[in-house]
């Protein structure tokens, strides 16, 4: 064991109460950081996951203004105010080629064609405005895992089958196997209508979408909106969710199509997440500052207490740089051990809170993230803070005058 480490460890061990106090201090600081980061990280991750559970990362559509899906905050989607009954759903020109182009873009994992159009769902006396979503279950399933959202029946869009949300099912009194009518346009304008069988009912975690979305096969939607062989939107999924805006810009640049990322469509959510992040960063900075001051003051006291021994060490051949290192090492060790205490404490707090505070259905309100990168980073941070905090006391120790100390006995 190196000389400096040996001395540093012995001094810490000898420090007892002082060492314990500072370890607990660093530990509490690190625990706060871990707990906060875990909590906020988990919360944000689940918010984003819930948002992206029903949305593609990027939605591509033709340049022209069309009655379109205008997703707003919280994942809710409402139709554009510009929608007029006469407006027709339009296809992306040569969408197969565009889709292939998009899939070649770096960071894009998969893309799927779809058709979105307004319709009325009618059963008996009831009639609800809905958004018909024409998809290929295979390709669309790689973007939104619809299968996992089905709560009754199954995802089957063969022929004139449709999958509807729980809310629509409730409002129209529909269940798996029941039939209902989908009408596009008004009869005066020569609108079309057809009868569909409910094959499955989904719960997307959003009441509005559960009332609005009706999934049919792409082919059925094509004929429903008079778009034989067409697709009105291309839905895109990327490797990293936060690259979506970048990908959207690239798509727009290379194809000229309008491409909206989920980040743009959910700007308010993102702003919220960001301000949450910055306030958590602020808290962490102050915690780190408090920890650093704690370490520095404990070490400063220890330097004064140890001045006699520092004099002996210096008189018996210990170099200034070695004395400096002895105290820097003490700071780092306090950081290292303190962060170990803090990680245990922080994880414990996270687990405790996620167990205690639960939703009525028993799921955790605070989904906690266990993030080894976060732990390693916190440990590295604590060691760094310990090291920096030790600089002033260590320099003071190294500058001590051995002659004076030895004389005073």
């Amino acid at each position, binding site marked *: 064991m190196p*000389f400096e480490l040996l001395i540093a460890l*012995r001094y810490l061990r000898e420090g007892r109460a002082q060492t314990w106090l500072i370890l607990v201090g660093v530990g509490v600081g690190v625990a706060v950081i871990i707990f906060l980061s875990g909590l906020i990280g988990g919360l944000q991750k689940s918010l984003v996951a819930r948002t992206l559970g029903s949305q593609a990362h990027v939605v591509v559509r033709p340049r022209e203004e069309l009655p379109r899906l205008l997703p707003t905050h919280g994942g809710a989607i409402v139709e554009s105010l510009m929608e007029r009954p006469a407006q027709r759903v339009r296809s992306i020109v040569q969408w197969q080629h565009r889709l292939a182009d998009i899939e070649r873009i770096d960071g894009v994992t998969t893309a799927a064609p779809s058709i979105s159009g307004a319709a009325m769902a009618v059963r008996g006396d009831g009639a609800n405005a809905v958004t018909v979503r024409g998809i290929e279950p295979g390709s669309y399933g790689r973007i939104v895992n619809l299968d996992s959202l089905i709560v009754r029946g199954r995802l089957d869009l063969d022929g004139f089958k449709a999958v509807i949300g729980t809310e629509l099912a409730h409002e129209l009194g529909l269940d798996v196997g029941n039939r209902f009518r989908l009408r596009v346009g008004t009869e005066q304008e020569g609108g079309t209508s057809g009868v569909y069988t409910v094959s499955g009912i989904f719960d997307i975690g959003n009441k509005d979408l559960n009332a609005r979305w009706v999934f049919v096969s792409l082919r059925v939607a094509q004929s429903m909106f008079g778009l034989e062989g067409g697709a009105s939107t291309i839905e895109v999924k990327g490797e990293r969710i936060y690259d979506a805006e970048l990908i959207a810009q690239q798509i727009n640049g290379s194809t000229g199509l309008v491409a909206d990322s989920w980040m743009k469509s959910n700007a308010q959510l993102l702003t919220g997440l960001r301000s949450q992040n910055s306030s958590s960063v602020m808290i962490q900075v102050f915690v780190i500052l408090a920890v650093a001051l704690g370490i520095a003051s404990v070490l400063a006291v220890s330097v004064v207490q140890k001045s006699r021994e520092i004099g002996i060490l210096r*008189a*018996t*051949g210990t*170099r200034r740089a070695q004395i400096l290192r002895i105290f820097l090492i003490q700071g780092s060790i306090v950081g290292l051990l303190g962060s170990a205490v803090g990680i245990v404490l922080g994880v414990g707090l996270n687990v405790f809170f996620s167990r205690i505070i639960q939703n009525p259905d028993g799921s955790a309100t605070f989904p906690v993230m266990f993030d080894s990168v976060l732990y390693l980073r916190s440990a590295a941070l604590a060691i760094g803070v310990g090291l920096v905090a030790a600089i002033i006391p260590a320099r003071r120790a190294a500058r001590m005058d051995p*002659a004076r100390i*030895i004389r005073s006995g």
Partner: protein
Amino acid sequence: MTDTPATLLRLSGVTKDYGSRVITHVLRGIDLEVTAGEFLALTGPSGSGKTTLLNIIGLLDRPTAGRLEFRGADVAQLDETETTAARGRGIGFVFQFHHLLPAFSARENVMLPLLADRGRRDREMQERADELLDEVGLADRASFRATDLSGGQQQRVALARSLVMRPPLVLADEPTGNLDSESGNQVFQMLRDFNERHRTAFIIVTHDDRLAARCDRVVHLVDGQVESDTRQGAT
């Protein structure tokens, strides 16, 4: 033995002043030459500058003026690192108040200068420490913590520590000052034995005339000046 003993240490016109507004002239022109293997007593009344002189010779302090040569090298030319190295390897210290590190065992205290010099622990330094502890009669106390030893035992550990680098010169500031006459005698005899066995030069500050009488040479300081420098027949 050798015909003309080599000069180990040469001081010429060394002065030391303390203070900036009110200046105290603690040392006023010390000329002193110490040869290898010498056993020298430094005496003088309290406040005459003995500890100050010892600190300057031990490279813990710098003279205000004058020249200090250690083993032929002008010490004033050395920087901090070189000074520490010269002190670590060339000079052993036994302090008036047995200065041991309380958190360490007797063996570790003895090893300390070697540890600082080599950077990490090795077998050889442990053996050397044990040998020295054996020589000062503390083989059975090697793993005792410094604070669990008696005053005389602590001073013997300090003596072993001062010798572990095999320095040509050991400076001892009233090594027996805090001890009863019995253990004081014992420690003094050990210094003498080491001096004879290893030809290590000793400069011993003492107030005890009987101990001074047992040294080869007595340098008497008064008011920061050498008042007398007498060589006497051994023991």
